[in-house]
């Protein structure tokens, strides 16, 4: 028989060494070598003999026990481990089945109480009532422990590395939901085992109170009332634990489910697109949004000319070049692309006057084309622009009056940046 005081004294004395070991033991058993290494790391000035004697004390006090069939591996004595877990507020989630088993036992105890009362056995009645009371305390303790454990599950999921896949990160949440919360919902349901058990015990206790008043007291009424109050407390506590579990885990579970659905949806859409093309994705699912409107530079007559040209459109036969014929006359220059112009402009930065630069680049360019490039390049985000004074510019055909821009790279600080629209006349 180990003296409890010695165990408690050893726990208190070696708490600094035991507490970190608890975490290791939470993850499994430790070999003698690992244990020695762990203790040596914590006690740098200790000799191997000190560690041996320390381990010897723990083994003699039953704090450490050898693992069955592996005498060189050790674990914390389960009772001590639970006690230390309680002290460290490290709660392990129990099983819903345990609560159900306790409830079945409560129902049986209610039966025994009824029997004891019927045969007017006062001692047995008091004993059964005490047992009932202690069992209810067990359930309450368990519910409280489970609630703390659920908080820890949610915290672990929320604080774990964001880089690991959500499914992996929330694996514990999903398992807890399936193995604890879901059965608890069934259990605490109006027609579940919990409610039935509580109702049965409550009926017996209330009937007992009435009968005692009629037939005379076998036990103190206070004892019955206290047990009854504790049963109601247990019922409320179960409902609160369940509510808390739902509040904590449901959003995380939904997040994980949504994540799975998104990944699955994306994979499904891609396989449909691979097999049947981009248009196969249901149009109804696609988001609709207004197309970005560009600020269109053009005067009324340009728009009129454009519409007129559209209305009077006549297709012309396309003249494809022939491989065997050499091109006569001046080779036709391909139109400039936006990318090409942007590149050229970027290479020429900083530009003291965009319009002057354009006229140098495209001396033969048509006025509307030059104005288009002026509008396009001055609005480019890569460039910072500073408004210049109004002046006249001569194109091949026209005299244009406008306020040009000086362009610099947008990465460099510019004297004045403006987003006001271009005005040309």
């Amino acid at each position, binding site marked *: 028989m180990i003296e409890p005081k010695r165990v408690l004294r050893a726990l208190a004395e070696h708490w600094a060494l035991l507490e970190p070991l608890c975490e290791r033991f939470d993850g499994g058993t430790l070999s003698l070598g690992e244990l020695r290494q762990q203790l040596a790391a914590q006690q740098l000035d200790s000799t191997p003999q000190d560690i041996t004697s320390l381990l010897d004390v723990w083994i003699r006090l039953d704090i450490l026990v050898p693992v069955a069939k592996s005498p060189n591996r050790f674990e914390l004595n389960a009772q001590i481990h639970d006690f230390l877990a309680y002290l460290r507020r490290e709660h392990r989630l129990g099983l819903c089945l345990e609560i159900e088993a306790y409830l079945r036992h409560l129902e049986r105890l209610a039966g025994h109480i009824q029997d004891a009362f019927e045969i007017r056995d006062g001692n047995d009645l008091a004993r059964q009532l005490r047992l009932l009371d202690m069992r209810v305390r067990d359930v309450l303790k368990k519910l409280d422990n489970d609630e703390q454990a659920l908080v820890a599950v949610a915290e672990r999921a929320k604080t774990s590395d*964001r*880089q*690991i*896949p*959500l499914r992996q*990160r929330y694996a514990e949440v999903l398992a807890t939901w399936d193995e604890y919360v879901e059965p608890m919902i069934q259990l605490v349901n109006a027609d579940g085992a919990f409610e039935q058990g509580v109702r049965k015990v409550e009926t017996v206790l209330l009937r007992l109170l009435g009968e005692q008043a009629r037939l005379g007291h076998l036990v103190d009424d206070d004892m019955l009332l206290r047990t009854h109050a504790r049963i109601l407390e247990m019922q409320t506590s179960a409902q609160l634990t369940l509510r808390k579990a739902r509040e904590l885990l449901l959003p995380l579970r939904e*997040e994980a489910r*949504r*994540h799975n*659905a*998104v*990944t*699955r*949806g*994306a*994979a*499904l*859409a*891609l*396989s*449909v*697109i*691979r*097999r*049947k*093309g*981009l*248009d*196969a*994705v*249901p*149009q*109804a*699912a*696609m*988001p*609709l*949004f*207004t*197309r*970005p*409107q560009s600020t269109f530079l053009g005067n009324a007559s340009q728009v009129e000319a454009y519409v007129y040209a559209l209305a009077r459109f006549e297709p012309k036969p396309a003249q494809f070049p022939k491989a065997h014929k050499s091109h006569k006359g001046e080779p036709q220059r391909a139109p400039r692309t936006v*990318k090409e112009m942007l590149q050229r402009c970027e290479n020429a930065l900083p530009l003291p006057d965009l319009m002057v630069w354009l006229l140098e680049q495209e001396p033969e360019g048509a006025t509307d084309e030059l104005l288009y490039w002026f509008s396009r390049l001055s609005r480019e985000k890569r460039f910072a622009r500073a408004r210049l004074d109004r002046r006249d510019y001569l194109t091949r055909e026209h005299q244009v009056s406008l306020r040009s821009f000086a362009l610099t790279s947008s990465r460099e600080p510019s004297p004045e940046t403006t987003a006001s629209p271009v005005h040309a006349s």
Partner: protein
Amino acid sequence: MHLDLSELSQLAPIFRELFKGFHISRRDPELYAQLSNFQDQYRGLFRALGYELVCDTRGFYYFVPEQAAAQVNKTAQRLSLFTFILVEHLADQGRDPMAVLDGGSLGRDELPSLLEKYRDLFIQAEVQTPDELEEKIMRRMTQLGFASEDNGIYRFLPPMHRFLDVCLSVQQDRDLAASLHSALPLPTPVLIEEEDPQELNKTDDPLDLSPFDESEEDALARAIADEQQEIDA
């Protein structure tokens, strides 16, 4: 509803951005705060002007185009495709797609390998080079307020939920899943055309041996009419 325009101090920039198709989120704190504080007033005003302002509880605002003008454009298809690809790519790498697309970021340097891996799909969206991927997809995303770009890092903003919703609705689409497992083309509605009784008698099949129910006069008149038609043509 009483509207005090002096309260709507950001009306002009808000309208300008929304009208361009931009999604306003917390990335634009001033505009977002105005919309949040005077949500009903803005919604009422825009509705009166014929614009439907959508206030998504996940933290963004946008205009929904009129149904008459609403059609899925190439941009929507491209951006959806990009989202599908990115979700699958991240999941393949063991990264969390939701963490990236819901407020996370993606480096510009990751784009070329993404393009290489999904070249067959990007081609369908007319995207073949990294430049095109940046121009047609990433730039569009920033223009529409789905992402922001800073020093070669694209940060995804709350409006991305619109594309994540597409993934969800595709996932829920049982017909689509079923069609994937069959070799048949996607179901299209079949309309029954009413046939003209006259047409029933016509036959162009030279091997059709069924007797003509036509008198000699009728046959002659038909031949003359056909010939006349050819001359006219």
